[in-house]
């Protein structure tokens, strides 16, 4: 059914790169040539046969740090996306099905949250919360769930008035059944294409936070944190900070290409929607 030759080249590039990043993230300890915090050489050595990408600001192997960084970056972004999706989708569907005060209350609250730029509110909250992975995932997931909420609610409101939902209500199914068995399966395809975009957003948000020194704390580092560690080298002409920054861009672009392709596929199957 899925013929590899019929995948457009941009999507193929995206798929291969995404798979590569995932592979690096999952098997980090097996493929990294050196340990994550292991100091192997002097500071900011250029690329060589021993250190394929050179060394970082403390003399650690940059390639190994990049591979471990992929693990942290992707792990946090995946967890935050999973949280924002489950929370946003369930609340959005519930609001659409129940309507009434619950819908009004939730929707106005989401409007309010979205009236503050996400990064700014994230910074405000992080100023009092402890800097741990759990806080980071919770804050990113909760803030981003507002967008998922809006989308899921809009999709569910359309589905909620369809005949099969009406039939399920008439035969006495409860709200839980309506949400998970009637609405969820029919809302999946628009939500899945949104999934890619939310993941990219999570990667960029995390990178920005870590770059500002408020995300993942040393000695661990995600890619944004690695940019921060190596940024002082830039003015001496040492491009070490550009490598993790480029990796973030490459990950975001490849996921974007895949998401675009999935969006086109699902919409053409559905025969419409733009």
């Amino acid at each position: 059914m899925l013929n590899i030759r019929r995948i457009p080249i941009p999507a193929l590039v995206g798929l291969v790169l995404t798979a590569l990043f995932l592979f690096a993230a999952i098997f980090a300890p097996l493929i990294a040539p050196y340990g994550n915090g292991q100091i192997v050489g002097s500071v900011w050595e250029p690329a060589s046969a021993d250190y394929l990408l050179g060394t970082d600001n403390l003399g650690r192997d940059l390639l190994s740090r990049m591979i471990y960084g992929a693990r942290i970056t992707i792990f946090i972004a995946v967890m935050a996306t999973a949280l924002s999706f489950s929370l946003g989708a369930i609340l959005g569907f519930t609001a659409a099905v129940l309507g009434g005060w619950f819908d009004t209350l939730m929707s106005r609250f989401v409007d309010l949250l979205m009236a503050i730029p996400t990064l700014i509110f994230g910074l405000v909250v992080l100023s009092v919360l402890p800097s741990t992975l759990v806080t980071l995932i919770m804050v990113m997931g909760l803030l981003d769930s507002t967008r998922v909420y809006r989308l899921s609610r809009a999709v569910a409101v359309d589905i909620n008035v369809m005949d099969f939902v009406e039939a399920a209500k008439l035969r006495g199914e409860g709200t839980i059944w309506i949400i998970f068995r009637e609405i969820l399966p029919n809302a999946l395809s628009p939500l899945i294409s949104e999934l890619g975009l939310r993941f990219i957003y999570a990667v960029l948000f995390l990178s920005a936070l870590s770059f500002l020194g408020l995300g993942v704390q040393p000695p661990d580092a995600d890619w944004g944190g690695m940019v921060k560690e190596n940024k002082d080298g830039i003015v001496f002409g040492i491009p070490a900070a550009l490598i993790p920054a480029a990796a973030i861009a490459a990950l975001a672009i490849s996921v974007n290409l895949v998401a675009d392709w999935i969006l086109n596929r699902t919409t053409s199957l559905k025969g419409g929607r733009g």
Partner: protein
Amino acid sequence: MSSPILKLVAQRIALGVVLLLAVSVLIFAGTQILPGDVAQSILGQSATPESLANLRAELGLNDPAYVRYFNWLGGILTGDLGTALSSGQDIATSIGGRLWNTLFLAFWAAAVSIPLAIGLGLLAVRYRNGWVDKLISGLALASTSFPEFFIGYLLVYFFAVQWQIFPGISTVYDGMPFLDRMQAIALPAAVLTLVVLAHMMRMTRAAILNVMQSAYIETAELKGLSAIDVIRRHAFPNAIAPIINVVMLNLAFLIVGVVVVEVIFVYPGMGQYLVDHVAKRDVPVVQAVGLIFAAVYITLNIVADIGAIVANPRLRHPK
């Protein structure tokens, strides 16, 4: 004719004020009522009971939350933003010059990116599906995927280090000559421009293409106007309302971009100030600066609404 417009505008502004009040509650709640004690999280786990009690008294944490909120809000409304915990300085005084610096940077980024985006958007419509158009789509993909610091450090690496045209660190000071100041902000303004440009171009293109499908455009084409004239005289005036919206949304986006960009270039603005004090867990500063950012963001959104109402008569008569 003007009174219904005024009424609508007044409604939007009133709505904005209510929203801003609600946002101030949220920002206050976000820093005060979260699990754990603010004093504890500022001082860390090793704090002695005495220093905790002192800090609680200094922050007024012994009062109930709503009392503290109204004290805080009352202070802000009278121009008193409180004092910074870390330095003991008056926040309003420290912010003054920084706010001006940030607005200066954002203004020049906007002054370059808006005409450029609209012009390129028009070009993309004129040569749609050609290489110009494809290039713009590619740029839009890149700009939604590139983190600001990637663009920022790339520019620093080439323009400041390799070719040494512009400074890589944007130092500005009071009484700096205008041209020196412009040279100092060249790179940060360029990063901000690149971050918002592609999105603005793409939305401008979409807005004009939408109008291009109308019957009056076909009439204009059939009566023999040149392609540029069709766009300039018929399509563009009708596309202004959505374009104003896009421009305002992107200006609001600049607000967020400015935080990261100021840190990249060590530019003495509001974003840098906010980030420094989040790291120091200096809650009064974070609240004040967060509220200012939110206020600017909300104001821009209201201006976008009002601009759309003024530009498009159809929006003045809600169904």
